[in-house]
């Protein structure tokens, strides 16, 4: 992925930032510039919780070029709590029987290590949601980060 393109995508990739239409209040992920529901412009950023459930999943045995080095991996379509669907890789699922309806949460992971020009592309993946006490211990209140 080219560096300027990666830079444009960083908010969506790092914190699942989509957009919201100020006119009709519809929310979107991925972010859009124009609202397809009412054709208003000037959509505002809108973050999503990253929590959701598995809508569907697949174990990919023939990854495309650029991903073939990491071998078979599992991808999923996730229904976010706020409504939108997202497709992404699933992570931390070795030994886990993935199923439709399974609760998952967004984490930031390496998407592609040997990208063009040598840098690493990071972005969202989804992992099985931890039981609540563990999740609280593992995730202190995040500090505000300006991207």
């Amino acid at each position, binding site marked *: 992925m080219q560096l300027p393109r990666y830079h444009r995508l960083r908010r969506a990739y790092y914190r699942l930032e989509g957009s919201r239409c100020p006119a009709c209040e519809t929310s979107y992920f991925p972010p859009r510039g124009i609202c397809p529901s009412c054709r208003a412009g000037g959509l505002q950023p809108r973050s999503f919780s990253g929590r959701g459930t598995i809508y569907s999943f*697949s174990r990919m045995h023939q990854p495309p070029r650029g991903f073939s080095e990491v071998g078979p991996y599992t991808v999923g379509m996730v229904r976010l709590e706020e409504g939108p*669907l997202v497709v992404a890789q699933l992570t931390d699922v070795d030994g886990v029987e993935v199923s439709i309806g399974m609760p998952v949460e967004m984490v930031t992971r390496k998407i592609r290590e040997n990208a063009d020009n040598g840098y690493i592309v990071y972005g969202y993946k989804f992992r099985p949601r931890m039981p609540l006490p563990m999740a609280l211990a593992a995730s202190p209140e995040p500090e505000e980060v300006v991207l």
Partner: protein
Amino acid sequence: MGEHWDRSLRDLAGEAVLETLRDAGTGDVQALYVGNMLAGQLTGQENVATAVADAAGLLPIEAVKIEAACAAGGAAVRAAWLAVASGAHDRVLAVGVEKMTDHFNDSVSAALATAADADYEAAHGISFVALNALLMRRYMHDHGVERRDFAPFSINSHHNAAGNPRAMFRSPIDVDDYMSSPVVADPISILDSAAICDGAAAVMLCPLSEARSYCEDPIRIVASSCATDTVGLAERRDPLVWGAIADSAAAAYAQASVGPDDIDLFELHDAFTIVSALTLEACGFAAPGAGVRLASDGSIGRDGRLPISTLGGLKGRGHPIGASGVYQVVEAFLQLRGAAGAAQIPDVHTAMAQSVGGSGSVAVTHILQN
């Protein structure tokens, strides 16, 4: 159709053009629309329509490439139809061509993934097969069907391909072959998926008033339509409802003043078995969740109510991306003319061909009559 190690993209397209001109009985062509998706990525050749016009000896006619992902072939036929219908040209060629076998699978897989959303699907390592696998698993979950229930689509395509001398796979398969075929992205296996291959097909269009000067029984295109949906599969309200396919079919039915009951055969975009099921539902042949039943109850067979993939479809004939949509129209043409040989379906009056690009994000539908 197949693996043509000794033929280039230009050779394949040139051959299809020459054969079509010979069949049409005229070399007087005014424009050429080339359906192609991957020449830039796989052959390193853009400006491909000029290259094909040159290779076929057609210079200096108008020549433009039409790209609509896997629907490029259907879109090229539609471009030719628009040119004739508008009165801009009177004899127009649409040729679909794809050259895929010079590359290893992972390169072709990455190239095909450009039909999906570049930033939110392909860049995350989600292959085109995987997107269809997500659909298939959810379909099985929602409608309580099993992987085995999709087998009749693949079996039908291979069975029909046996009667097509140009098809890539001419040996029949059975349920055991289907169930034991290697997994690509579960639940999709090799025998759910149309094959990577090389191929080219061409059709010549002219106004009906002129057609009878070339042949006694011209075949009419009575409807041509194109519709779109989101590129990203996840951006749809319900990913199992294929809006572009439904909209394109509805527009075609209205143009031709026909309905699903009037369609005698359907060359649909069976790139994956799940696509066949969702297409039959979106086009009004089955209720949601009932698409697979048309396969298991024999409706899609040669003697059934709605024969599909009659010369093997994408699965049995092969799926050279940009060529497939043109192949479908040629195959509908052959059936309507009674020239489909061993694959001939009796009493065909109205045939539909539908070319789909992306994960149901663009659909081009044509209805033909004799």
